[in-house]
């Protein structure tokens, strides 16, 4: 299987503080890589580099064999999309849902103007939101619903790679479950490759195929999920896993 995404010794430093230090990573097409690490480990910075929001000081990012430079082509912009953590900051408060969804559709000419409305309705259906949401403003939605709209916007341009930067951390437990299921279903349906970032081991275990652990800007372990959760290679990974409070499971 061709590697969808290659990250070659990426280094980023913010005035002396080294956020990313010679990071090498690749994600196979149509698989989900979970990126785990504590706050300040650089996982979000790496996501921003891949999404093109941050230009690395060294190294390069390659997506399906094309090098992603600072000024990306329209196709490259279309191919990689991102969903963010904070539901109340992920949507423009002054735009209606219709405007939010149609911006990508129009800019990348996904559908002609005539079919714009149907496409928006389809997108909302995909994320289990009903049509009358189109005319409403973001403040009228709950955190979970807003993340769904953000996801709808991301997939509106039919990307190949979806980056999710802690999409459910700010949500309540019950809502979190439904959003994760949505992401899982979309991944299957649209055959997406996904880079999933979280500090919550439970979420990573539920969503990802392979797991990468980051600490102070370095990747210290990459292993398939099954192997990672049973006997992790790195000492730090073991520490991380043992620190997670476990719930005693009773046979109900």
């Amino acid at each position, binding site marked *: 299987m061709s590697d969808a995404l290659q990250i070659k010794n990426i280094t980023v430093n913010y005035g002396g503080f080294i956020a990313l230090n010679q990071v090498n990573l690749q994600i196979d097409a149509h698989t989900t890589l979970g990126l785990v690490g*504590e*706050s300040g480990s650089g996982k979000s910075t790496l996501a921003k580099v891949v999404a093109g929001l941050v230009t690395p000081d060294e190294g390069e990012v390659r997506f399906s064999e094309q090098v992603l430079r600072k000024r990306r082509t329209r196709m490259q912009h279309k191919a990689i999309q991102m969903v963010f953590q904070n539901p109340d900051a992920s949507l423009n408060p002054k735009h209606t849902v219709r405007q939010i969804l149609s911006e990508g559709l129009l800019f990348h000419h996904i559908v002609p103007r005539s079919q714009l409305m149907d496409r928006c309705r389809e997108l909302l259906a995909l994320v289990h939101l009903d049509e009358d949401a189109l005319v409403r403003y973001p403040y009228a939605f709950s955190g979970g619903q807003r993340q769904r709209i953000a996801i709808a916007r991301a997939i509106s341009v039919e990307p190949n790679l979806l980056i999710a930067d802690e999409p459910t951390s700010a949500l*309540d*437990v*019950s809502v*979190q*479950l439904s959003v994760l299921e949505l992401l899982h279903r979309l991944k299957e349906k649209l055959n997406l490759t996904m880079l999933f970032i979280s*500090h*919550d*081991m*439970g*979420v990573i*275990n*539920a969503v990802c195929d392979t797991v990468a652990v980051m600490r102070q800007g370095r990747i210290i372990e990459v292993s398939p999920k099954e192997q990672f*959760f*049973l*006997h*992790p290679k790195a*000492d730090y990974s*073991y*520490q*991380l*896993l*043992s*620190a*997670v*409070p*476990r*719930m*005693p*499971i*009773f046979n*109900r």
Partner: protein
Amino acid sequence: MMSMSTILEINQLSLATTNKKQLVTDVSLAVGKGKTIGIVGESGSGKSLTLRAIIQLLPPTIIKVGGTIRCESSCAMIFQDPVSALDPLCPVVRQVAEVVSYRQHLSRKTSRTKALELLALLGLPEDLKRNDRYPHQLSGGQRQRVLIAIALACRPGILLCDEPTTALDVTVQKQILELLAKLQRELNFALVFVTHNLAIASALCTKLYVMKEGRIVEQGRTQDILANPQHAYTKMLIDSVLHLPDLKGVIAGE
């Protein structure tokens, strides 16, 4: 059920906003001396409001409309967001010393030494004695320890914790939880632990209260609730905790 050792008892507590919007209705709970109870619920379930009612620190727009709160001894509280819970312009040791001097009526000098002892007890670095540091120069975990020091300075019989570890990394969270358990064993204060994370609550608390939209939907000993939850909402909470395969790998030099 009012046994001698109950140190805090609330019955039929109801809270509402000034424009009559009901927030908390008929909440009753009790904590034995030195015991730990957990209040579990999602955001907006009124759990932290109940805590604030216990320590009479309700925001001006929310008033008590019913029920009674009886605490045997003084209470102290620690909060979720260590970043904004400390005065950014006042050095850390001075803040703790200030609390010590007011609560334990000691002179400025002795309260400073007392404060340093407390901070040492909580495992904060020694160099605080020499150069006092500002909150923004400490890590999240260290700031939370300072908050605990401030709470302990009031020599509380009851320590109220409003999701103290939610904003922390998982490794730091483990240290803080262990610290709290250790301190409770030593100082024998009662602990009321509010969280949305069922896993933490079940590890720490002997008794659990599950809250939804301002009401207690289920309560009882932790094992009983986890073994056979009665209320549908509790079942949903338990099922939505993403379980992890138990760790088998043995790491050399563990």
